[in-house]
C-alpha cells in the first residue's frame, strides 16, 4: 500500500469515526424525542380521522370485513357545530386581551430595567422571573383568594359601589377573573423578550432625536417603539400561544361561563372520552398556535436585518 492510499484510508476511517460519534451523541436524544414526542403527535393526527370507541377512546382501525375505518366526520362536526367555533373565537379573544394587557404592563417595566444601571438590572430581572418559578397552580389559586367573595378587595369594592347605590359585584368566576389570572401567569414571558430587545438600543439615537427637537412622546413612538417591535412580537407569541391552550386558569377562576378551548379538549379526552374529536380540537389549536408563531417570525424578520 502506498503512502497516499494509506492516508486516504485513515482519513476515511477518521470520517466514519466522526460520523459514528455524531450518531452516538445525537442518537439517544433524537430517538427519545421521536418516540415520546413526534410519534405521539403523529398518532394524534391519525386519531382525528378515526371513529370513537363504544366505551371511549378509539374504535378499531379495521371493521369486521377488514375495511379501513377512517372518516372526515370529526372535522365536519367541528366545522358545522357553531358552539366549538364560538369557544375557539372566545379563546382567541381571551388570549388577545391577555397579550394586550401583558404588553402594556410589561413595556414600562422593561424600559425601566433596560435604562437602570447595569448592576441593578440582574436583580430587577430576577424579581420578574422569581414568581414565575413558583408553582403555576399556586399562582392561579392566589387569585381565588384575592377575588373571592370574602376577600378584602371584593368587600372594599362593594362598599364603595354601595355608596353610589350600585349593586354588589362578584369578581371571581367571571371573564374578568380569567383575564387577570391569564395576565398574571404570562406576564414574565412578555417582560423578558422586551427587556432583551430594549437593552440593546443605542441611547445616542434618543439624544439625537431630542437635539432635533422631538418631544418625549415623539421619541417613544418614532424611535423606541419601532425598534422594539421584534421584542414585542416575540413576547406576544410567548404569551399568546400558551394562553390559547391553557385550561387550568379558566378551570379554577372561570366557573361555568369561563370555558376555553383547552377545557373542551380536556373534557373530550377525560370525560366524554371522544378522542377523535378531542384530537381534531387539538389539531386546530396547534395550527392556530403555530400560525401565530409563524406570523410573529415573518413580521419580525425584515426588522432584524436592519
Amino acid at each position: 500500500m502506498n503512502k497516499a492510499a494509506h492516508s486516504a484510508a485513515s482519513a476515511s476511517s477518521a470520517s466514519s469515526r466522526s460520523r459514528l460519534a455524531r450518531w452516538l451523541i445525537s442518537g439517544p436524544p433524537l430517538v427519545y424525542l421521536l418516540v415520546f414526542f413526534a410519534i405521539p403527535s403523529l398518532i394524534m393526527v391519525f386519531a382525528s380521522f378515526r371513529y370513537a370507541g363504544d366505551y371511549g377512546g378509539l374504535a378499531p382501525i379495521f371493521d369486521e370485513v377488514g375495511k379501513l375505518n377512517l372518516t372526515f366526520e370529526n372535522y365536519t362536526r367541528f366545522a358545522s357545530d357553531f358552539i366549538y367555533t364560538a369557544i375557539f373565537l372566545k379563546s382567541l379573544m381571551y388570549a388577545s386581551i391577555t397579550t394586550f394587557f401583558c404588553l402594556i404592563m410589561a413595556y414600562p417595566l422593561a424600559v425601566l430595567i433596560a435604562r437602570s444601571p447595569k448592576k441593578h438590572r440582574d436583580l430587577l430581572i430576577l424579581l420578574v422571573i422569581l414568581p414565575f418559578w413558583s408553582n403555576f397552580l399556586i399562582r392561579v389559586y392566589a387569585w381565588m383568594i384575592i377575588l373571592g367573595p370574602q376577600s378584602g378587595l371584593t368587600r372594599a369594592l362593594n362598599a364603595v359601589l354601595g355608596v353610589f347605590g350600585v349593586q354588589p359585584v362578584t369578581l371571581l368566576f367571571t371573564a374578568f377573573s380569567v383575564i387577570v389570572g391569564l395576565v398574571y401567569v404570562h406576564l414574565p414571558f412578555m417582560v423578558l423578550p422586551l427587556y432583551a430587545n430594549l437593552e440593546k438600543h443605542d441611547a445616542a439615537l434618543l439624544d439625537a432625536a431630542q437635539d432635533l427637537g422631538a418631544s418625549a412622546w415623539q421619541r417613544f413612538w418614532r424611535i423606541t417603539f419601532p425598534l422594539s417591535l421584534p421584542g414585542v412580537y416575540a413576547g406576544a407569541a410567548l404569551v399568546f400561544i400558551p394562553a390559547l391552550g391553557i385550561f387550568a386558569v379558566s378551570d379554577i377562576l372561570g366557573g361555568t361561563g369561563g370555558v376555553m378551548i383547552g377545557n373542551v379538549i380536556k373534557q373530550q379526552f377525560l370525560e366524554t372520552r371522544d378522542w377523535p374529536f378531542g384530537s381534531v380540537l387539538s389539531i386546530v389549536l396547534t395550527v392556530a398556535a403555530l400560525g401565530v408563531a409563524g406570523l410573529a417570525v415573518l413580521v419580525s424578520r425584515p426588522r432584524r436585518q436592519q
Partner: protein
Amino acid sequence: MINLERLKAVNKRTYALWVVAVAVYAFLYVPLIIVMVYSFNDSQLNAEWVGFTFDWYRKLFHNDEMLGAAGNSLMIALIASAVSTVLGTMAGFAMHRYKLKLLPLLVLTPIAIPEILIGVSLLIFFVMLNITLGLVSITLAHIAFCIGFVAIVVRSRLSGMDESLTEAARDCGATPMQAFRLVTLPLIMPGVLAGALMAFTLSIDDFVITFFTAGANASTLPLQIYSMIKIAVTPEVNAVSTLLMALTLFLIIVASKLAPNALRSS
C-alpha cells in the same frame, strides 16, 4: 439652565416609570405574599386575619395522601431530571457541534407548542401501547419535555466557551472522548447542573402533562393541589404552597450560583 430643565423632565419621566414598575412588581408579588401569610392564619377562611398558627403545617404533615403525592413528585423529578440531563446535554452538545436539522426541531417544538397537546398525544400513545398510566408514564413524559430545556442551557454554555481549549487538548494527543471528559465537560458543568436543576423544578411543578399521563391511581403534588383547590379550599393549600415556593426559591438560588447566566438565556 436648559440642561437643568432637561434633567428635571428626565427625572419626572423616570419617576413615572418607577411608579408603574412598582405597581407591576406589586401585582407580581402581593398574591404570593397573601398565600404565604394566610398559611399561618388561624381561620378556616382565607379572608380575615384571626391569629398566628402552625396548625395548617401540622395537618399537612399528617396528611398521608399529600405526603404520598410529595414522595411521588420527588421521585419522578429526580429520575426525570437525571435522565433528561444526560439526554439534554447530549442534544445540546450535538446541536452545538454539528449542523443538524431534525434534532433542533424536535428539541425546540415541545417548548413552543401548548403543553396540553403534549399531554393528550402522550395519553393516546400510552393507552395504545397498553402502558399503564401511572408513575412510569408520568416520568417518561416529564423526560420528554425536560430534554429541550436542558439542551438550550447546555448549548448556550457551550457557545460561550473558548473552542481553542478543546483543540489544545486534541493537539496534546487527547482522544475526542478524553478531550470531552477532561476539558469540555468540566467547563460546561455549571450549565449542565443548572439544566438539571431546571429540569427538576419543571418536573416537580408540572401540572398539565402530568394531569393527562397520571391515570387514576398515581398522584403528584400539583395534582393533589389541583384537587384540593377544586374540592374545598382550606388553608392547608396555603401551607403546601408556601413550602413548595420555599423549595423552588432555594433551588433557584443554588442554580443561579452555579450558572449566573444560564437562567436568563433560557
